[in-house]
């Protein structure tokens, strides 16, 4: 926070007035410090401490056991799968509406609905999918009684990797639609026309003009959706109980009752989550800054 002095062009003011300016931001700073920064720092510091307070790397090393690594791996796989599919499906729907020549009136309701659906996460979402794809859910029963397809016999289970991925997609796809629609709007007509005048085919226009421009938004949203799925706790717990060992569920159980038998391993587990979502969000912020260059 060293750029403050450059904010006030006439710096030669009476010196006693400056602190008063800063007091206005003090309540916010105190709140953020107490209830966002310090709790997070406590976890980060705790990840590198022994129970008596001295520095150690044992907790981080403790993460590299089979059960914890596999929890991270499943979490990452679910997050990647739901983020990728969410991006692809969301992109198809958004580009269908923006570029596909569908009636104009579809756009407004679609965006409103996406706003609602991207916020409809957590416990109720799990219930909705249990009632749809669970053992006696709408689709399961329909496929079985009308078409003779037994999802269970085919190996599908809502309390599994794909079950969770399909459920997460319910808020991932709308989020993608909400973010990518403005980017698609930003593709200027002139670019396509210019490409056509220079003799480009439709495929060439997409490959050499539209795709490179959209790529940062696309990858950035991918990172955002990844972090979004990685931190989701409530949906996973309500859907699977504790039958699927993913990081948020493991951490939840650890906070509740120290299932790992070492409180500081819990810190390390949480620290690992911050690192993963932190990397994903850094990628998002970096790529968004790049994509905004074109979409002004």
């Amino acid at each position, binding site marked *: 926070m060293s750029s403050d002095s450059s904010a006030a062009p006439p710096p030669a003011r009476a010196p006693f007035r400056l602190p008063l300016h800063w007091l206005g931001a003090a309540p916010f700073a105190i709140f953020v410090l107490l209830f966002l920064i310090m709790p997070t720092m406590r976890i980060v510091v705790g990840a590198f401490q022994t129970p008596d307070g001295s520095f150690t790397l044992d907790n981080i090393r403790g993460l590299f056991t089979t059960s914890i690594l596999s929890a991270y791996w499943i979490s990452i796989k679910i997050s990647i799968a739901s983020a990728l599919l969410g991006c692809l499906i969301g992109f198809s729907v958004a580009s269908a509406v923006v570029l596909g020549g569908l009636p104009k009136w579809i756009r407004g309701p679609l965006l409103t609905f996406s*706003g609602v659906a991207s916020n409809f996460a957590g416990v109720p979402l799990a219930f909705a999918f249990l009632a749809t794809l669970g053992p006696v859910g709408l689709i399961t029963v329909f496929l079985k009684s009308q078409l003779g397809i037994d999802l269970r016999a085919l190996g599908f289970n809502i309390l599994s990797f794909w079950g969770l991925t399909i459920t997460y997609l319910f808020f991932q796809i709308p989020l993608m639609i909400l973010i990518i629609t403005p980017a698609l709007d930003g593709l200027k007509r002139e670019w396509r026309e210019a490409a056509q005048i220079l003799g480009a085919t439709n495929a060439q226009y997409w490959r050499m003009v539209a795709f490179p421009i959209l790529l940062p938004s696309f990858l950035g949203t991918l990172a955002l959706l990844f972090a979004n799925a990685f931190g989701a706790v409530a949906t996973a717990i309500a859907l699977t109980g504790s039958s699927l060992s993913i990081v948020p569920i493991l951490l939840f159980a650890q906070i509740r009752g120290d299932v790992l038998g070492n409180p500081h391993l819990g810190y390390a587990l949480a620290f690992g989550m911050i690192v993963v979502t932190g990397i994903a969000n850094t990628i998002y912020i970096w790529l968004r800054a790049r994509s905004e260059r074109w979409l002004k």
Partner: protein
Amino acid sequence: MRKFWAWGALIFGMLYFILPLLGMTNFSLKMRRGVYSLDAYAVVLGDPRFQATFTYSILMALATIVFGVLLVVPTAYWVRLKLPGLRPYIEFVTLLPLVIPAIVIVFGYIRLYNTSSWLPLTGSITGTNILLMFGYATLALPYMYRSVDTGLRSIDIATLTEAAQSLGAGWTTILARIILPNVLVAVLSGAFLTFAIVIGEFTMAALLNRPAFGPYMQLLGANRAYEPAALAVMSFALTWGCLGLIQLVSRFQKGAQSAT
């Protein structure tokens, strides 16, 4: 041909969203064998624990909104007016709750404010309620701050402030009677979104052991068959209502602006 694919993508997307909604509605009506009935809803609404947890979560949501507005509006105003150099940093900080998972934040609370710490908030019920409210305010911060900041951008706060000051208004008067009414729509948008987030929140309430609506839903989901679907339908209606109200107030503002 392109239209064909466009319709295909749209219909696939719509099916993806309509089928689960249909599934939960259908399931919630099937509690009585063989016929559609509203029994599941009656059971849920008649459950005293539903009433208690739902009331608790509504009160928490209202408290969070009041606290959030009192925290965010003066800060966003002050930063825009006097400390513009600070804006990028504040913006970055307000986005942090989207980066740090809620479960990590609440884990930090439990360790930082336990009974043997310097601020033993989790030691008493009131203290834990306050801590949970602060947690919710943190979760809602990105939405609240961005909404209010966008609202402030559309008005000329420097001129408004000088005009008010030259008429003898103090800071409280300026904030409560000049700034707040001018960004009311933005504040309301943030408030409705906060409400939608808080009302069904699970992780923080469960780990702080507070009797909120989210943990109640989870408990019911683990033990019952039809009632959870009814709860899901009601939650969806609630989310839809909150987001619908945001649309309504922003349309109202547009109407008011074009009328003047």
